[in-house]
């Protein structure tokens, strides 16, 4: 069943974008959610960085994860992507338990991410960064690569076209042959998103995608996040401190403080929640 689901998903989430209707696609929370985290937790030497984290994200949902610095948001992403093995709880991706899996397997199951502190392949070109994202969709091996068999030429060409098409999402085709490490900051953040998308995820995790961007870039990013969701029909979960962005595009928001969820709900509900206001005001007083 799991193998079939995987195959089906690969067919569903097309590389070639579906025509964007501009309406919010149907949500099927009734069927298996993309992500289901239950009682998730991790301890670092006695410190519970994340504790009893429960969250369900439906197909094509945009979810926000907010909270003061050090609340454990990035740690949640590291747990979901198996950079850390949880000490408690379970993570289900498309109904499949990820217990015992590593980062590579989690990615193959459909989780892709960006990093708070940008982690591009600096010495490679922009296009090659995207091609790394496409790595597991290209099937020719080392032998075909070295001896330049027909599989090499055919798939390299496909990969090149796919990479450019993905880069065109952010109008970055022209930068394809620049060194990734030499891009301006905002472009590096966008490239990370493109690279993650190239792995054909069903759940895209964005860790502070707007950090360091100016208001104009942030606004464009918001439009692009919605565009990505609509075109690729995937769920997106993002960590962000920019409240305009979070309140503007997230359909569900989850607030974390000291590793625990203190509130969940829509943007309006979160803004009116006294516990959340206290957590943020309390933090301001300290700072």
């Amino acid at each position, binding site marked *: 069943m799991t193998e079939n689901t995987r195959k089906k998903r690969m067919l569903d989430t097309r590389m070639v974008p579906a025509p964007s209707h501009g309406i919010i696609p149907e949500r099927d929370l009734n069927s298996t959610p993309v992500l289901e985290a239950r009682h998730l937790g991790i301890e670092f030497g006695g410190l519970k960085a994340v504790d009893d984290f429960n969250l369900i994200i439906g197909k094509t949902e945009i979810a926000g994860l907010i909270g003061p610095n050090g609340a454990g948001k990035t740690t949640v992403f590291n747990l979901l*992507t198996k*950079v850390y093995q949880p000490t408690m709880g379970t993570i289900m991706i498309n109904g499949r338990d990820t217990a015992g899996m*590593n*980062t*590579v397997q989690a*990615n*193959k199951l459909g989780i*892709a*991410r960006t*990093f*708070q*502190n940008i*982690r*591009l*392949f*600096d*010495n*490679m070109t922009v296009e*090659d960064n995207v*091609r*790394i*994202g496409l*790595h*597991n969709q*290209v099937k*020719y*091996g*080392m032998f*075909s*690569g*070295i*001896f*330049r068999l027909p599989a*090499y030429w055919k*798939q*390299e060409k496909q*990969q090149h076209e796919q990479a450019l098409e993905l880069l065109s999402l952010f109008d970055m085709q022209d930068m394809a*042959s*620049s*060194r990734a*490490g*030499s*891009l*301006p*900051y*905002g472009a*590096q953040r966008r490239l990370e998103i493109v*690279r*993650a998308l*190239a*792995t054909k995820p069903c759940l895209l995790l964005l860790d502070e995608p707007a*950090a*360091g*961007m100016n208001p104009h870039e942030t606004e464009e990013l918001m439009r692009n996040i919605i565009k990505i969701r609509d075109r690729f029909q995937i769920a997106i979960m993002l960590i962000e401190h920019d409240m305009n962005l979070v309140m503007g595009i997230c359909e569900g928001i989850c607030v974390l403080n000291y590793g625990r969820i203190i509130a969940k709900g829509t943007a309006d509900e979160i803004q009116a929640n006294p516990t959340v206001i206290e957590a943020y005001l309390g933090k301001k007083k300290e700072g």
Partner: protein
Amino acid sequence: MKLKKSTINNIISYGIVIVTFIICQMMISSGSMTRSLKGQMVPICVYIVMAVSLNLVVGISGELSLGHAGFMSVGAFSGIIGAAWLRSVLGVENEILRLVLSMIIGGAFAAIFGVLIGIPVLRLRGDYLAIVTLAFGEIIRNVLNCLYFSLDGNHLRISFNNPNIPGTILVNGPNGAKDVDKIATFPVGFVLILFTLFMVLNLINSRSGRAIMATRDNRIAAEAMGINVTKYKMMAFVTAAALAGMAGALYGLNFSTVAASKFKFDTSILVLVFVVLGGIGNIWGSIIAAALLTVLPELLRAFADYRMLVYAIVLILVMLATNNPFIRSLFDRLIHRRKPATQRGGASE
């Protein structure tokens, strides 16, 4: 269709290597090359292959290996034994065929050792490879010092620490291999260089090579993109070991006697020096550095007393040239015509 930049660069690389070979061949046949320099031609090929293959590990996959000479010695001794075996048991008389087959044998044995070392070590994070390869280089040399091989009729005999074995001795413990057929030739060495370049450059410009470089640039990101880091580090390491083994076989079959002490730590470091001087990750640089620094002591014989001084000065100059940001960017612009790098700004973590 427009040719890719990397393809054009590769064609130029092969072209220059071929032209250099033709010039050397012409110098040899016209007799304008000194005898000692002529004797250096095979070692130059060997060291070029050693440097390029080590660069695959150090520069492309970003792992430090301090025992590359260990793979060379495995290749040398298995190649020497293989050559003797091919001749007396299989009756392969053609020297070029025997040389090529021996090089394949040497490469295969070195690759096996590469796998044996890589499997436990490359799964770990951190610089364990440097420590383990360093130990490997030393251990293999000490083990070879105690090994005796002989060919008794159709049987290959091995003994440990016991020189009294029947048959014709091939490898005689600390004295190494003796009465080796000197079947190594410069043209075959040149073909080995081309083969190495073909393997390494094509690997780099393929899906697997990009994965290898991704694991070098950022291991965590590579894993998050679904790349099996251990697999690709292994691929680079074992390929390099196999190439070093082939070079070792060529080297071993170039002298009438070869002792294991030839492949000591200094040799590993020497090859690493070629890689560092030529520029880490720069395949081209490795070729030039290996060729120049192997011939240089020979050329400097004329200077007699000032030889080491000039050698040191050349080392420093090469280092300055390859590491100077101005000269580097000049080269980059000449070769790659890269767009000027934009300064990275904005918030930092």
